[in-house]
């Protein structure tokens, strides 16, 4: 077994915390790992990336070769595109859809989203919404690890153990916020995939996920929602056009 991951984002978004969680889960699982990161010049608002590799055998290169990446995990949509060329044909992209606009020539966010959504093996989550609901906008990085967690080789409990360890020094409130962001991200990512696998267009699936109050999101409700949409496809747009959020528990489209 070998997994090659590219972590991406903007300096300050907590890429290295994402790396810490996966590194230590791999270490706890008795795997070998190498994880190259960026320090120095690129810290302040620049593009930041980390190559993370774990395996049950010896790993040679600290860098993931082009064409060998199994997974891109990005806390920012444009940054996910930046490393797309490294991905193996069987690879996946897990990305936040929340743009971090600090450059004058940032492309229209809709176009970035469209490009990501056009890729079959993608998980898209609204990390800003999830982190805010978890209690702190800064927890977007943990939301994205949560969304990626089904594609990693560790149980949810193994990963959460490291999340707790990572934030322990900052007090129980910070620990809780980050664990919540992780679980919200995991549920939202799973729900997104089940909706897409059930036939919804990725952008529609994303918008439906965003329509749910994050604490109610339950991937097991996907079938119910898919049935409701299949029965009355036109009602989905009506639901998405309404104000506010709804509970994911009751699959029901407006009349």
């Amino acid at each position: 077994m070998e997994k090659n991951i590219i972590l991406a984002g903007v300096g300050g978004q907590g890429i290295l915390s994402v790396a810490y969680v996966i590194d230590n889960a791999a270490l706890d699982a008795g795997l070998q790992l190498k994880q190259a990161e960026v320090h120095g010049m690129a810290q302040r608002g620049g593009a930041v990336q980390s190559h993370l590799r774990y395996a049950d055998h010896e790993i040679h290169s600290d860098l993931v070769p082009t064409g060998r990446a199994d997974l891109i995990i990005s806390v920012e949509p444009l940054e996910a595109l930046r490393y797309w060329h490294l991905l193996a044909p069987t690879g996946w992209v897990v990305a936040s859809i929340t743009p971090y606009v600090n450059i004058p020539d940032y492309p229209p966010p809709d176009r970035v989203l469209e490009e990501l959504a056009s890729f079959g093996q993608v998980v898209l989550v609204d990390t800003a919404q999830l982190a805010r609901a978890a209690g702190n906008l800064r927890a977007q990085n943990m939301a994205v690890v949560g969304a990626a967690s089904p594609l990693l080789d560790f149980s949810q409990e193994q990963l959460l153990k490291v999340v707790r360890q990572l934030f322990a020094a900052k007090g129980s409130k910070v620990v809780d916020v980050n664990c919540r962001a992780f679980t919200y991200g995991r549920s939202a990512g799973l729900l997104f995939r089940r909706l897409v696998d059930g036939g919804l267009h990725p952008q529609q699936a994303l918008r439906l996920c965003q329509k749910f109050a994050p604490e109610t999101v339950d991937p097991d409700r996907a079938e119910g929602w898919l049935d409701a949409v299949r029965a009355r496809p036109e009602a989905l747009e009506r639901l998405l056009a309404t104000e506010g959020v709804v509970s994911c528990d009751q699959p029901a489209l407006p009349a």
Partner: protein
Amino acid sequence: MTGEVLLGDEAIGLGAVHAGVSGVYAYPGTPSTEIFEFVERRTPRDQVHAFWSTNEKVAYEEALGMSWAGKRALVCMKHVGLNVAADAFVNSAVTGSNGGLVLTVADDPGMHSSQNEQDSRHYAQFALIPCLEPHDQQECYDMMFEAFDLSERLRLPVMVRLVTRLAHSRAAVRTREPRPQNLLRPAEVARHWTLLPSNARAQYRHLTEKQPELLSLAEESTHNLLELRGRSGAITCGIAENYLRENLPREHDLSILSIRHYPLPVGKIRRLLDHVDEVLVLEDGSPLVESTVRGLFGLAAVRVKGRLSGEVPRTGELDPDIVRQALGLPPLPLAHQPETTLANRPPALCKGCPHVDTFRALNEALSAFDNPRVFSDIGCYTLAALPPLEAIHSCVAMGASIGMAAGAAHSGYSPAVAAIGDSTFAHGGITPLLSAVQQNVSLTLLVLDNDTVGMTGTQRSMSTGDTLDAIILGAGVAKEHLRLIEPVPAKHERNVAVIREELAHNGPSVIVARRSCLEALKRK
């Protein structure tokens, strides 16, 4: 796999501590900074001396003094820092060491955050000392034990060379039983350390006489591994081995010599070359081994491939893709090639950074001049070269802004303006300022005092606040031409006026722009 997940830099630091180091000396510089920081964080101050030095030369000399006293010392720097420390470094090979003396240099192939990509192995060769080049994090840790032992055996400083990719990459590292520190046992023979010509000649001869021993240790080193297989070969240095093995199947026919202990193991190289028809040389840095193996006229029987022959790009960092291509393997299939070229996201000064206000004021004050130019230095403020500020027009070496502005002023160029940060000023700016004052040069020096070393992660600055002002006055700058401004938007007009007044002064003047770095404030 058990152990602690450590950066290559951190593994160096922990290895040194476990090998019984008594003092760690450094000036911050990417990619070497985390070596010192790890030791500082992990060991009590009364056990291991760990305090930032003013610059790399001072750090080296402090380490040499610790070695003179019989204890083990580690000195760490980035590659260009060794240029600053070169005087002490080269001469320390002539004096020799007493307690183990290890210099760890982190080179930056690809110039991720440096002005050049010079290869420190040249320095080790030039100074006639051994150099170890670990290929992974575990070896970073293990080699510190060996480097100190080797230094004490040979009575010479030993270099450990890293590259950015190893310095800043993590892996699990297994640790060993720590070794106790040396007792105080100062060097006894004063003439070894007193390089008067008569002593220096004897010492230098002695250094050359040690070379056969250095060579035989490298020949026998378990870090220099020769695997003879087919008639096609490769020589790898340090981390390059990883990129080669990444691209090889489990079963292959390539003969490989991995070099991680210098001087070059001549016997092993000869055995490889006698066995193969062609050899690919992979080194993350300059083509040092490749050019040595090739010689001036090339080899009759073996084709030597690498950076000089074009199989590997002449400049830049190695990576698995470059090595794959050099091996003649086809590219791997890809999932997707994005069509559009993406907007770059370069590093930028932080929102609310005091440097932004300083350079806005400077730009406005200079707007009266035709095509004004500002000599600058190395730090976050170097980012002011980029849009939208475009306020500075040089960045060469630590402290160079002041000397260059003075030289331009000597030529008749006006206004001669230099900009430097508080820590860079301590590092290399004091002596050129003293020189400019003694020569009564018309130059305006802007010191951006943000109370920290910002670019490398907010380490302690040596000359900030009152200390900085006292140094400037002590260098002889007239009291009325040491001006203080507070770089905030509300004081923009006043700041522009102050800069204009000093630009008009015929003689040396210094403007200190004083406001703390926001990142440093966050960490306090």
